């Protein structure tokens, strides 16, 4: 009797020790199989000529990376991506301006915030359809508006030289609400006493903004800068829907998709995505460093 009671309590103790693992197990298993193992697998796959459709795969060493260096289409897609970086300062500025306006405590702030954030929650694919029509050169809305003011219409997405710009317009409309929310949260952390004190000292509103508010938003600037820079590396849906001629909007991710899932060169596509991953990882590390320094 006594022995079995001891066994029961020992069982209870081991059970007790196992409890936390039951709570975290589903999450750990999920992260392991859906993110970590695939991330690790990407490297060995990039050393093969696998098509993923047949079991046949050969180890080709660094061949895919060597090919990448000489692939004109890859470098062209890098160039396209580089053009998209203009988007970053624009979206940050749009977010900051709208946040500053809403921070003035004008009437209807809640409604305005609701409207400014609404594009963020809509499907990129569905919203791109609207802009596809707006950008239409011969009867689209934007050219009708330009025509109303007596201006000549543009080719927008259908012209290789304005295609990236058009996608950027769409992307800024779609995303600036998120920057706005983060700037708004940051603005609430700027103590109004400091602003009042500087106003008493005779600083103009611009000077107060330039020397007090703007520098105090540093954590928001860093977070948004990094987030949107990484976002540019990942552009895919926008340019999947709004395609310019002559591959003028084909980003690296679009190119990875073409090579991996349309030509089934999974090994080669993997080499590209792994290279992209390394660059993004370095940026993320820099971000963590920068935000850490901020806390100190």
């Amino acid at each position: 009797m006594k022995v079995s009671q001891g066994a029961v309590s020992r069982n209870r103790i081991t059970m007790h020790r196992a409890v936390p693992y039951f709570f975290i197990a589903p999450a750990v298993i999920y992260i392991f199989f859906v993110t970590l193992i695939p991330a690790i697998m990407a490297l060995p796959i990039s050393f093969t000529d696998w098509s993923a459709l047949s079991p046949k795969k050969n180890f080709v060493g660094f061949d895919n990376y060597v090919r990448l260096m000489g692939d004109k289409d890859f470098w062209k897609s890098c160039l396209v991506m580089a053009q998209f970086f203009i988007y970053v300062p624009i979206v940050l500025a749009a977010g900051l301006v709208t946040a500053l306006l809403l921070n003035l405590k004008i009437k209807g702030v809640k409604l305005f915030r609701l409207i400014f954030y609404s594009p963020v929650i809509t499907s990129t694919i569905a919203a791109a359809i609207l802009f596809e029509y707006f950008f239409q050169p011969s009867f689209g809305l934007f050219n009708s508006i330009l025509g109303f003011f007596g201006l000549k219409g543009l080719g927008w997405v259908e012209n290789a030289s304005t295609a990236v710009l058009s996608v950027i317009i769409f992307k800024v409309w779609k995303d600036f609400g998120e920057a706005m929310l983060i700037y708004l949260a940051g603005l609430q952390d700027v103590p109004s006493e400091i602003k009042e004190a500087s106003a008493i000292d005779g600083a103009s509103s611009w000077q107060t903004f330039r020397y007090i508010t703007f520098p105090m938003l540093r954590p928001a600037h860093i977070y948004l800068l990094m987030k949107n820079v990484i976002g540019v590396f990942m552009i895919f849906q926008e340019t999947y829907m709004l395609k310019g001629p002559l591959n003028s909007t084909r980003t690296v991710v679009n190119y990875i998709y073409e090579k991996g899932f349309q030509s089934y060169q999974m090994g080669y596509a993997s080499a590209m995505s792994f290279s992209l991953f390394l660059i993004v990882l370095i940026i993320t590390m820099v971000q963590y460093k920068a935000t850490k320094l901020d806390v100190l």
Partner: protein
Amino acid sequence: MNREKSKKMAVRIFFFLLTLGLAMIIAFPFVWMIFASFKESKEFYVLKPTLLPEKFNTDNFRELFEKLNIGLYYWNSVIVTAMQVLSTVTIVLLAGYGFAKYEFKGKNVLFLMILSSTMIPWVATIIPLYIMANQLKLVDTMAGLIIPGMADAFSIFLARNFMSSIPTPLLEAARIDGAGELLIFRKIVIPAVKPLIAVIAIQKMVSSWNAFQWPLLVVNSDKLRTLPLAIAKLSSQYYDSYNLKMAAAAVAIIPVLIIYVIFQKYLVEGVSLSGIK
């Protein structure tokens, strides 16, 4: 003094009008979409387009549902979203609680592992993930569509931070009363974190409903298409039928907009909960 006051007033009115103008520009595509989805095809091919349709006819929606089977894609999106929200909330709450309120071996390493996984962009994992799905015969199945979106690493981080504020003595008291761990979780923890649940559920709902990249890779057959996939296909197949495209966009966007307006508090709160300012 009076002049000063009226100048201030004028500035305020100016900024209000500026904000109003911006808001009208931002909202315009949605307003346009709603009216345009009732237009006829020929109304898109005019030099001076009008906001309002000549007459409100629902033919576009009828065609979408009767001929283009959008009801099926809608249903697929609803199923995928519901399953992913349900499982994400469950997995995230369990893990958040486990990391917030228990001490165990390997806790820090495992948490760091989850945190570091948020730094891995989707592009880095998508090819191996597809190959895994292919080997497990999950390509072009409902399970293959749903499984990779069944949890969210960043939400676990959010949940752990939020749940750390549950007072431990409350849990200890329940333990002394003989309550089991799962009962404590269900009866004490869950009711205490309702806003957190709302934040996680709404964020996941929006991202599942709009998900495009993974579905694009994993779905081949028509019967498994979700709304964004169907819309992308419609857009290239009927590229000159703007009336149908507008109606399809409206069908996909409006439900999310309605839910967003009702629950916007939680989406906004999510940003501040994440502690990034």
